[in-house]
């Protein structure tokens, strides 16, 4: 046996820092909570969509050969975090993940319908994907499915593109996220098979991973904002003559929320970097980032609501909005059980390494 070491460097480059600063000011200016509320119940703001498009955010993480700006998953993660911080009502993450997969297909020589790539790249049509399609038969709920013209899915060993004429109707939900039922057997849906065989499975696996990473990033943003809101309230609200942050039952929860945020953030960045640079190394990391962000955002937004006392559960409180968004955004991909199923494949990989360890080492008798 020999040792292998890896770097553990989470720092952002200067350009990435600048990107974050740009995104922070863009989304806080253009997606204040009033915009988010006005966009409900659909969860979409056409003007904000035009703004993100005009600011080049749809093409940032699309390969240069396909007409994008050649940025990668880290840039997508940084964008996702800012989207989450403001609960921005735009389907940017689903759209960009779908664009990245279509760009790979184009690169493989797959023909897309005339003009469809260009209009998607320009944000004139919206794309999405069906993250749970490989598990489901028939109809399934699709994130951004009420906005999308076309949806990527994986059925019977093939990557398919479902396209419909009119828009699908939103399935109403408390988070006011634009999910909708899509059914490949529906008469109003036309289905094109884009890729089959091992290559298709591999491509879908990568697509799923990128979607998990992008979605986890948006949850990191929700975690960050929920933490900020709760901390601000905790030093303002008084009870028994002291600020409520002086009660450890409150401050320790705030610390735990902070731990959830930072670990979710680091795991998402690490998964993004490795998926991009070494996709074969620890392929479970994307599912881990998503599972961590999901469980964190569920429990931490609940704590953030609780810190507000009764005010927390009122519909007009900002924190209750983030609580609603948390579950809707986190669970549209099928929930942590599916992430854990993916993670459990790492058990087999570790079991092989253990066998190698036992072949190399004797063990003291006990």
């Amino acid at each position, binding site marked *: *046996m*020999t*040792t*292998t*070491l*890896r*770097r*553990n*460097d*989470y*720092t*952002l*480059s200067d350009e*990435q820092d600048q990107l974050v600063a740009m995104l922070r000011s863009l989304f806080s200016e253009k997606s204040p909570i009033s915009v988010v509320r006005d966009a409900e119940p659909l969860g979409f703001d056409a003007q904000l969509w035009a703004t993100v498009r005009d600011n080049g955010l749809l093409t940032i993480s699309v390969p240069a050969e396909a007409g994008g700006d050649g940025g990668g998953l*880290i840039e997508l993660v940084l964008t996702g975090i800012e989207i989450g911080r403001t609960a921005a009502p735009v389907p940017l993450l689903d759209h960009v993940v779908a664009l990245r997969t279509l760009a790979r297909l184009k690169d493989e020589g797959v023909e897309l319908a005339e003009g469809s790539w260009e209009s998607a790249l320009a944000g004139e049509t919206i794309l999405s994907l069906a993250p749970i399609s490989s598990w489901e038969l028939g109809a399934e709920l699709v994130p951004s499915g009420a906005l999308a013209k076309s949806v990527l899915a994986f059925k019977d060993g093939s990557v398919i593109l479902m396209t419909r004429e009119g828009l699908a109707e939103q399935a109403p939900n408390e988070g006011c996220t634009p999910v909708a039922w899509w059914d490949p057997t529906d008469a109003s849906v036309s289905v094109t098979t884009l890729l089959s065989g091992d290559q298709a499975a591999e491509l879908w696996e990568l697509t799923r991973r990128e979607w998990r990473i992008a979605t986890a990033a948006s949850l990191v943003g929700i975690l960050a904002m929920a933490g900020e809101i709760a*901390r601000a309230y*905790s*030093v303002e609200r008084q009870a028994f003559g002291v*600020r409520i*942050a*002086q*009660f*450890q039952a409150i*401050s*320790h929860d*705030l*610390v*735990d929320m*902070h*731990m959830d945020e*930072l*670990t979710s953030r*680091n*795991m998402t*960045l*690490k998964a993004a*970097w*490795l998926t991009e640079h*070494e996709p074969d190394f620890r392929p479970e*990391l994307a599912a*881990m980032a998503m*599972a*961590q962000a999901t469980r964190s955002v569920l429990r931490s937004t609940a704590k953030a609501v609780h810190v507000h006392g009764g005010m927390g559960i009122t519909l007009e409180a900002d924190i209750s909005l983030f609580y609603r968004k948390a579950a809707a955004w986190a669970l549209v991909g099928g929930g942590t059980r599916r992430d*854990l*199923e993916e*993670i*459990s494949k*790492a*058990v087999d990989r*570790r*079991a092989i390494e*253990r*066998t190698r*360890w*036992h072949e190399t*080492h*004797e*063990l*003291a008798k*006990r």
Partner: protein
Amino acid sequence: MDFSEVELTAEQQAFEKELRDLLDTNWTPDYAHISLDHDRAPDAVRTGMVERGWIHPHFAPDAGGAGLGEIEQQIISSLFEEFYMASPGGNDLLIPTLDKHGSEWLKANVLPGLRTGELSTCLGYSEPDSGSDMAAAKTRAVRDGDMWTINGQKMWTTGAHHADYVFLLARTGPIEEKHRTLTMFLVPMNLPGVQATPIWILGGGRTNVTFYTDVEVSDDYRIGGVNDGWSVMSTPLATEHGAGVVTEGVTPVNGSMGQSFSRTFAKLIDGAIDWAASRKDAEGRSRLEDPLVRMALAEAMLDLEMCWNAAGELGKPMAAEALATNADRLADMAAPEGILDFGVDGKIAAGIIASQRLHSPGTAIYGGTTEIYRNNLARRLGLPRPY
């Protein structure tokens, strides 16, 4: 951002081989040595490392080290992990403090041995009536000219039975003045009146009660000013807590103890995988294929990855709690064998799960309790002190 594999240079590979040979020759991996902040590497390994300047490899060769870098330090951690070996025990926490505050005499006579690791130290902060509230220490040092007389009792003096010196927190003025009347000393453990008796803890580790009865020590052993003890000890304490750990290289971001708890946690998972690989269900299928077992292991692996991503001070409470939760989870997964001890027929991976379940509550206490950590972390978030 960078998570790529490090290409080891020829020298680094040779370093790894030399260390591997040292460990191979002197040690058989032992599942009972998987955490163990309360044990240390065997003497042959320690001596071999002292001779090579590897206890503090990052120090310059003329300062007791070997002039090696972060990579070699990580190779050491990684091999110790592979060999299930307790730490060689270093004096990292104290050397910077002695450099800064130590008397000339200590610097000339003790510091060199601490630097090579030939001499070792233990920490004498806690007492029967004060743990979290360290500034309530009662152990008293009274001055008479150039000599001090020390009387009192310390609790939980881990490693005192191996150590050459104790870094002792003593009261040198009215106790009402709390942290303003504390002074630090480096007291030789072999002085008359110093005595260590064992305390056995859950999981089989040993720590000690230490008694100080009319211990006479010269002023040369004082560290820092009289009544300056609180500020003198703040640096090693913060280091122990993992504050300010910023690495951009290969060192895990999880600070201090959280790192060793995470390594222990990794071994717990490995032990559970060994168990699953060795057991079959009623249909003759490997337990590794059992969906319930896989789910429990996947959750444990997720928690471990979370610990490795918990930076600095967050690392300790997170890893301590994850270790405890997962020791329960895996004992439950492997029930009923999960409760069996080392050396028992049918034990799991030599009893690793049961012993770590026993050990884990301590990780949330020693080196500062998880509540104290959360108090500190809350302050760093800008929150007011508890009322």
